[in-house]
């Protein structure tokens, strides 16, 4: 039987080793460390990277509880003089932006999930049914392509499609007797554009994992089903889909776990003040209010709020995965 996909996609932290190699106290530990001093020396510099560029910013989060002044030295971060407690958090929760950006984050993520999750599965099902290998490969290669464009390029292509100055879509509308529209500044359309672009850029790429799961299905299952008179749709429905259901469930769970990432770069590159009301998410708000507006402490507080929520969501997603008998991320 095939491996459970949880096994395939996760990066396991524990590799069936006990926590410490042997429990023989400090002396034995020191002996082992001395024996492997070459290995520790190799690891030192890379680990220093994690300390400086990954953990120091976490320490820096204490400015969320201060009135941080960028013109004071580093010492100011560690002094109690500027300590203001949860003032910035309270300001954030009380601000008129709070509900709007939380709602936008969740709603945009939800729409991306609603369309961006099932479409790769359907695409994988269709590609899996193709009998002509050359055609199959061509479709796959082209469908992955947008994934390799940088976000700036992808957003540029979307702008080019939608511009009222002769964009492809507007030219088509005009050709059919309609009137050119400014799509990107229309609040009613902006989220649909985000979702469509997301599908365009990622659907092909996201289908790979499902195709890989399908490749592990035993061909005898299809032959048996065909013998019993199942047609192609029935085989897709009763053989292929159940066989990849574990992949579908686990990927869905972790996408929900990552829901607070609604697409910061994408939105930052496409939005404008006229569509802030429907597209301003937590990340873009941190960027504008915190970084551009130079309210570092306030921005750090909003960012911390999001990071903690995201950690809890991921933790719950992992718990659910375990509960369903799949192996989670850890």
């Amino acid at each position, binding site marked *: 039987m095939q*491996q459970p996909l949880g096994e*395939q*996609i*996760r*990066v396991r932290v524990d*590799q069936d*080793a006990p926590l410490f*190699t042997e429990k023989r106290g400090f002396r034995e530990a020191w002996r082992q*460390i001395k024996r*492997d001093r*070459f*290995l*520790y020396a*190799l*690891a030192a*510099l*890379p*680990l220093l990277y*994690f300390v400086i*560029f990954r*953990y120091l*910013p*976490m320490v820096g*989060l204490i*400015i969320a509880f201060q009135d941080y002044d*960028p013109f004071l030295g580093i010492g100011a971060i560690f002094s109690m003089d500027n300590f203001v407690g949860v003032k910035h958090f309270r300001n954030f929760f009380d601000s008129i932006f709070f509900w709007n950006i939380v709602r936008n984050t969740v709603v945009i993520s939800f729409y991306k999930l609603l369309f961006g999750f099932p479409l790769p599965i359907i695409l994988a099902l*269709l*590609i899996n*049914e*193709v009998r*002509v290998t050359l*055609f199959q490969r061509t*479709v796959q*290669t*082209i469908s992955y*392509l947008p994934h390799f*464009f*940088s*976000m700036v390029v992808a957003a*540029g*292509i*979307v702008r*080019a*499609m939608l511009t009222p100055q*002769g964009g*492809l879509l507007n*030219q088509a509308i005009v050709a059919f007797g309609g009137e050119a529209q400014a799509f990107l500044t229309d609040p009613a359309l902006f989220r649909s554009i985000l979702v469509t672009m997301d599908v*365009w850029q990622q659907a092909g790429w996201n289908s790979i*994992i499902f195709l*890989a799961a399908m490749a592990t299905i035993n061909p005898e299952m299809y032959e048996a089903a065909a013998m019993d008179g199942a*047609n192609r749709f029935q085989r897709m429905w009763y053989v292929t889909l159940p066989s990849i259901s574990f992949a579908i469930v686990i990927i869905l769970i972790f996408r929900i776990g990552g829901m607070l990432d609604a697409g910061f*770069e994408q939105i930052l590159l496409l939005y404008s003040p006229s569509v802030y009301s429907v597209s301003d998410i937590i990340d873009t708000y941190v960027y504008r209010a915190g*970084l551009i507006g130079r309210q*570092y402490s306030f*921005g750090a507080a909003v*960012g911390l709020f999001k*990071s903690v929520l995201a*950690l809890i969501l*991921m933790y719950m997603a992992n718990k659910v995965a375990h509960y369903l008998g799949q192996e989670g991320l*850890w």
Partner: protein
Amino acid sequence: MKLSRGEKLFDWINILVLTIVTLFFLVPFLSVVSTSLVSGREYALRGLFILYPHRPVLNSYDMLLGQGSIVINAYFVTTARVIVGTSLGLIFTFPLAYVLSKRRLYARVPITMFIFFTMLFHGGLIPNFVLIEKLGLLDSFWSMILPNLINPWWLLIMRNFMLAIPEELEEAAIMDGASPLVVLVRVYLPLSMPVIATIGLWYAVMHWNYWFDAAIYINDPKKLPLQLILRGILEYGTGQYSDYSGLAEMTELTDPPPAESLKAAMIVITTLPILMIYPFIQRYFVKGIMLGSIKG
């Protein structure tokens, strides 16, 4: 196996649907390519986003890639970023992956947890910015390299690959009198070449495409990578760079390209290298999705 009529119909409909889907993925980019070739004259006659220009011209490219232009400069910045970022990325990632693949290592699991935690929790935008500022890296080339030295996810994938290399190889080499360094360089490095090549490609594409760090850390236009020049031209047109030689020659052209063609040409210029190597590197990326799976 003889196919029934229903089966054949199914196949044809499937091919038809997939062809339409493929066009959905492909046409937006193709139309940008064709727009980049439209001349000012043709624009006046036929409009802009035509499926193919009757008389394709390279005016837009001439203008963007003129002698000493900011675009050429940005090409050098991005190339340097890719080369330095990828080399240093591998130099930092490979040894740590090697160390973490040693099952006998004391405190191996705590060290791995220490790294793994950074995948789940981040300081976030503002503390990262403050850090770069305090390190004096604002407006420095290194602000694009150092924060991205090691991708923890890829590190663990590389470690998983090396976990599959039998430990007996190391024992045998040590029996033969090899030092730990020789074991690493002569035994593990050659055996790890497939995963090093794959992850090197990931670092390279990441560095070519990434833009946000430069957007917040770098102000000097001469230090901006290609993606940021593209962003500037897309959002504000070419005017903002008119102080720099190369792009100002617009007025001297007899048939200046329309603004939308310039933008389209800049998109093509930015993504052309990716496009050219894409057919050859694609399988490394696809394989990579499965690589993490080697023994979990």
